[in-house]
């Protein structure tokens, strides 16, 4: 009987520890997310042109045009890296589905996390894949650490679009 109680006690202790670890982890991630959401709009960042160039716009004129176009659309910054399996296997197809569903209203900008320290610091990126939804003004509307499904992204983009209209 005593042994049973001791074992129950140990199990309860383990469960409490587990609870505290989970609480601590959640608090840590939420703090990061709050900081990321509170950053200034991305328009003011000088690195934007570079980003757009990386997103596939070649000439200067095209970049300018794309920049104007982009200013009125919701953008998704998709952080990934070469060796990130989940990014290529799951996140990229999900982003493609979002792009296909929303067309011109959304712009997906791929960001290579290891070579973009300014952006990863700015949005407190903890892991890849991560996605940041920017509304038309460039404010971070939502930040997803880890894989975000296409349903989730669509919902967040819809919210960001509704906010701006």
């Amino acid at each position, binding site marked *: 009987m005593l042994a*049973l109680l001791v*074992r129950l006690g140990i199990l309860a202790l383990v*469960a409490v520890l*587990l609870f505290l670890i*989970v609480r601590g982890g959640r608090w840590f991630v939420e703090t990061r997310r709050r900081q990321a959401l509170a950053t200034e709009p991305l328009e003011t960042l000088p690195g934007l042109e570079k980003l757009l160039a990386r997103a596939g716009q070649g000439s200067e004129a095209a970049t300018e045009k794309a920049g104007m176009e982009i200013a009125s659309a919701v953008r998704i910054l998709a952080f990934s890296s070469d060796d*990130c399996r989940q990014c290529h296997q799951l996140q990229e197809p999900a982003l493609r*589905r979002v792009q296909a569903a929303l067309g011109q209203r959304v712009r997906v900008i791929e960001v290579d996390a290891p070579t973009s320290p300014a952006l990863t610091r700015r949005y407190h990126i903890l892991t890849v894949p991560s996605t940041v939804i920017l509304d038309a003004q460039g404010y971070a509307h939502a930040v997803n650490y880890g*894989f975000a*499904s*296409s349903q989730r992204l669509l919902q967040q983009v819809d919210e960001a679009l509704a906010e701006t209209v």
Partner: protein
Amino acid sequence: MESTTAAQERVLRVDTRLGKFSQGCTVLLTALAFVLSQPWLVAVTAVVMALSALVPAASPYRLLYKWVVVPLGILRPRLVEDDPAPHRFAQGVGAVFLIAASILLFLTKATAVGWALDLIVFVLAGINLTVGFCAGCFVYYHLGRLGLLPRVRYEGGFHWRGV
């Protein structure tokens, strides 16, 4: 784990409810085994998890889920975009821990270590059940990054590539 085929525009899907059900059962079984001090329950859980990892179609969790839990309306399937391979790997890791625990509990005097392994599985399954963080998947992705794992790809069945 549930998965659909390449035909559906190659979207990888996993039934999270089946995952949660499996994790819940694992948490319950490992906790019961420890509290009641029943090594055979550890062995049973080890076999169940090994089956889930090696032959998902014959997983007792899956059969119970498919033929009892879902028909009774206790849980409804919910397919989400996810890669089934890391979850399978994670169940394999759990099975290895529990097999090691069973060996220690049955054949050696180091029962404390055996129960510690049992509780590690309890904690990791508990974390996955409550917050959805899958420690085994984390290990899987990192092993993949280091190039230590053969690249396992899921396409309706397992294909070994670049071994």
